[in-house]
Structure formats: C-alpha cells, structure tokens
C-alpha cells in the first residue's frame, strides 16, 4: 500500500476537478499514451504547461488492455511502437521517473485503459500511487470483444473494492465511468445516461467515494444538453456520494477530416460542457481521423477547448433551468435505471440480469451478452431516435416506432453524419475501419 511520500502525493482527482471546473470554468484533458517513457513524460509535462486548467493522462496500449503482456515484451525488445504506455510491463521505477516532479497537488494524473479484466492494471497503478482511473464492468466489456459480462463484473467488483481500500493512504481513489460512451455512436442518450449512472453506483456500492460520470457528445447539441441535465439530476437523486462530477467526451465516432471541422466539433463539446455545468472535458484533436495525435496537436486541442469554454456563457445560478422538468431523456433514463435496480440489490448482478432480459440493449453492439434487438437512427434534425426498443422498459415513453427506418445505406449515412456536417461538402464517404 503506497504511503504519502513527498513528491508522490497527487491532488485528489475528484476534489481537484471540482475545485477547478464547473461554474463556467472547465478542466480539460487529453487522451495520450506513448510506449517510450521519455515521450510519455514529455507529453505529461506539455499537458501540465498548457494554457488551460488541465489534468494529465496516461493511456495504456492495446496489448496491455487485453492482457497480452508477452506481446508488449516482444514489442519493447524489437523496438516497435506501442499505441500507449505499458504500465504493467515497464518497471515501477521507470514510471516513477516519468511522473517525478510532474504529478503533484496541482496536477493529478489519470490512467485510461479499456480493459474488461483489469486486475493487473489496477495492481500496477495502485503500487505507483496512481489513484485515478476509468472504466466499468459493462462499458469496458460490451463494446470491445467477447469477454463474458459475468467475468467483467466479477473482476471489476474485485478491482473496485481493492482500489477503494487505498483511501486514506494517499490521494482519494477515483473512478470515472465509460458508460456515457459505449460504442461512441448511435446509442440514444437516455441509455448512455442510465449506463453512466449505474456504473457510478456500482463503484460507490463497492466503496469508491470519488467518482465521475461520462457523457459523450452525440449528434445534436440540444439533445445532448437535455441528456447531461438528466444525468446530473439522476446523480443528485441516486448517488450516495457528494464527490461526483460529469466529464464530457468530445465526439467519439467517425471524426471530421478537416482541421476546421475537427476544431468546430471540439468547440461544440466545450460549449456543451460549460452550458450544462460540467466540470471536465476530454478533447479530441485535428488528427483524430488520421492517426494518434502528436503532443503538440493535443496541446492545441486543450488550449482551443479552454478558450471556447472561457467565451461560453455560464449556466445561470439559482433554481433549476427548464431542463429540470421531466424531459423525455430524463424519463427514459429514469425508467431504465429503476428497471435495472429492481432486479437485484447488488448492482453488478442487476446489470447482468438487465442485459439477459434486454432491459438494457445497446444498438448495434454485437457482443454475445447484448440482446442486439434495439435499433436507432438519426432523424432529419440530427437527433438520435429509437427505431426499435426490443425489450427495453420504455414502451410507455417511446411512441411512433416504425420498423424499416434503419437500412444499411442509412446506417452508413448516420455513422458519417457528424463528419459530413462539420467538414466542408464533398467529403469522402465513411470507411468502416474507423478512418
């Protein structure tokens, strides 16, 4: 168990973000991970020095995420580039040197990964005194592979409980949910809100006291604002901790290919965050459609987002805005949350049963434990709509469903809608490999 050694003590991630974000200010953060320790250190330093309120990120490589540690060893021996920092494989002393003098009371660092079975990752970061991470039993399991949900729930339960025990021996452990993202596209906001909240409740149930909840920017600013308001309201109603905040992700789907389009989309994410009282934003860069960004591109994105945030009107103080009324998104999300919670007092078990019954069903998610009967589409205004709700407990709330709304060409159009909207006309059609 790490002790509060001088030079190792970070700020509490949650407390830091809540102090420096919200009320019109915004903490901004990159996604960033390099295999080479020197480059990782340079990236963290550049993030810290950016002209913005930032927190640092160490993003892990994809071999580490899926537990292929031997592949990491081979890559390191052969000098191949990794697409992230292999925190389990680099010796602890190496990572200590990466962080030395950079992490501190005014610059917490979060480890980002995407692992359904993160036991080794949690062990490695806990030993380093890194106490902020992210994920969730559902959100890191269903989108990426075929790990059975039951196994992810089991391991995330174990990891959350062990992580929570670090409280009091260093910075307060913090876990952010990835449930506000899922596949990154075409999940109607109410289900993202429900998943983000349920995963946060899962963490809190297992002893974690400092949490954040994600919401990924979608296709329509007004719809997203309604969704974030619903999420924040459900947090006030359900979360048994005061140490929570909401993080907005800049669009996680097929990204604009032009620099102007990319920045405009990022700017709208910053507007979304500030106008809804969110505390933190994870940015995307102009390189998103092409490759992993350089450090410079990330700094540009951080400073651009901070600038837009500064110029965005703050939400009015005082009693709740009109969004406090029972919006459509709030009603749907509440119905989903209540249906899931009714299945079992243990939230992990409740989540598993919910997916078995189809009370949660991610459109277009082909994981074996996802029913796969729900469908969604973009309406003519760009709002995300349900085309088929499968067995979701929303029949009383969602009307006018018609089969045949979703077609193969329609899907391609919906996947590339944001790119083509933000880029100039004549943009090439979306490729299905994410480029």
């Amino acid at each position, binding site marked *: 168990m790490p002790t509060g050694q001088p030079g190792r003590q970070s700020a509490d991630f949650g407390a830091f973000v809540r102090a420096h974000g919200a009320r019109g200010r915004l903490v901004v953060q990159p996604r960033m991970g390099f295999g080479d320790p020197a480059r990782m250190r340079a990236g963290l330093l550049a993030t810290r020095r950016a002209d913005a309120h930032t927190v640092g990120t160490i993003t892990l490589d994809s071999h580490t995420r899926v537990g292929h540690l031997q592949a990491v060893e081979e890559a390191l021996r052969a000098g191949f580039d990794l697409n992230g920092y292999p925190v389990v494989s680099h010796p602890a002393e190496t990572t200590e040197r990466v962080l030395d003098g950079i992490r501190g009371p005014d610059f917490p660092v979060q480890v980002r990964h995407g692992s359904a079975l993160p036991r080794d990752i949690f062990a490695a970061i806990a030993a380093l005194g890194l106490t902020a991470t992210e994920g969730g039993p559902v959100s890191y399991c269903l989108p990426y*592979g*075929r790990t059975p949900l039951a196994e992810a729930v089991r391991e995330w339960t174990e990891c959350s409980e062990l992580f929570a025990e670090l409280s009091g021996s260093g910075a307060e452990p913090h876990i952010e949910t990835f449930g506000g993202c899922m596949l990154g596209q075409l999940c109607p906001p109410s289900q993202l809100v429900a998943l983000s909240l349920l995963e946060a409740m899962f963490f809190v149930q297992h002893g974690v006291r400092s949490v954040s909840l994600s919401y990924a920017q979608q296709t329509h600013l007004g719809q997203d604002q309604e969704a974030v308001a619903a999420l924040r309201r459900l947090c006030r109603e359900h979360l048994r901790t005061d140490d929570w905040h909401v993080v907005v992700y800049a669009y996680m789907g097929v990204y604009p290919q032009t620099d102007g389009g990319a920045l405009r989309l990022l700017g709208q994410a910053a507007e979304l965050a500030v106008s809804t009282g969110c505390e933190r934003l994870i940015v995307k860069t102009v390189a998103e459609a092409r490759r992993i960004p350089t450090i410079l591109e990330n700094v540009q994105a951080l400073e651009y987002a901070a600038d837009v945030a500064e110029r965005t009107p703050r939400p009015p103080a005082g009693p709740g805005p009109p969004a406090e009324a029972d919006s459509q998104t709030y009603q749907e999300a509440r119905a989903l949350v209540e249906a899931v919670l009714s299945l079992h007092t243990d939230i992990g078990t409740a989540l598993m049963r919910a997916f078995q019954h189809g009370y949660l069903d991610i459109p*277009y998610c*082909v994981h074996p434990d996802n029913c796969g009967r729900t469908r969604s589409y973009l309406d003519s205004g760009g709002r995300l709509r349900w085309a088929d709700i499968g067995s979701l407990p929303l029949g009383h709330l969602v009307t006018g469903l018609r089969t045949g709304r979703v077609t*193969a060409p329609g*899907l*391609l159009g919906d996947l590339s809608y944001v790119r083509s909207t933000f880029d100039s006309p004549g943009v090439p059609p979306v490729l299905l490999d994410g480029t």
Partner: protein
Amino acid sequence: MSDGAAVAPAERTLPAQGGKGTVVVTTVASDSHTWNLVYLQLLIEELGYRVINLGPCVPDDLLVRECLETAPDLLVVSSVNGHGHQEGMRLIRRLREQPELAATPAVIGGKLGITDEADALSEQLSQAGFDAVFPDDADPVIAFRSFVEVLESSARTAGNRALPWPRITA
C-alpha cells in the same frame, strides 16, 4: 456431401424467420472492428436472410463450431484491420477440412492486406477455398449483392451441390 451425391438445396431445412436462409457473418481472430459487421448484417437482412453475427475477435474454433451447429447457407468473413488475408487463409483451410463445411458457400471481403496487393491476395484466397473475394478497391457491396443473386439462382435451379460455385473475384 463428401461422397459427391447430389443434394438439392431446396431439401435443406430453412428456419422460419429470415425466410430465405441463414447467413453467418464473422471476422477474424485479431480484428476488433464491428461497424463493418453491423453494416453487413443489415445488408444481408435486407436481402431476406437471418443473420448470425459473431462479433469481434472470433477465434477459429468458435467459427468452426458455429458453422457446424448452424449449417449456414452462406458464410461471410469481413475484416478491415489488414490481417484478413493472413487469417483468412488459415481459416478457410480449417473450415474446408470439415466434411460438413466443404461445400458451404464462403466469401471474404474488406481491407484484407496492409499494402496494395489486392489481386494477388484475392487469387490466393480463392485458391485456398473461398468462393468469392471482395477487396476494398472495387465496389464490394455491388459485387457482393451480385454474388448473392447468383447463389440464389443456383439454389432455385436445384442443381448438383457437388459442382463448384462460380468463382468470383471482384
């Protein structure tokens, strides 16, 4: 099938839903992309088939087992991470080793290699046992639809199943 006896396709039992038959859509073991699989599922459902979508990162064993259990009318392998050729070669040999799957129509498409050698890769994949290859350079969707039409008209003529399907390289 392995004794070469003619089996009219119409005698095969088809499931009630997705009237025309069952298609298995899959990718290769290393590929975690899924939007291509989702797109293909919709496309093939629109053509009137029931789709079993195996999702990302499908180990060879799982695919073979699924095909043996399902006896699909068509197997569609889609891969976009550049490893489709390598993995497809291994996969089709495993499938064709199973007597029950020796004559199952099987196609592969997508971004199958890392560099631009589509013709050479396609030829090798066809030789190895795929009935059609749809690399990313041509319009794979149009070519795929044509292939399915050929498949359907061959089934309607209730021809000799032991005859090879027309090899199509798009």
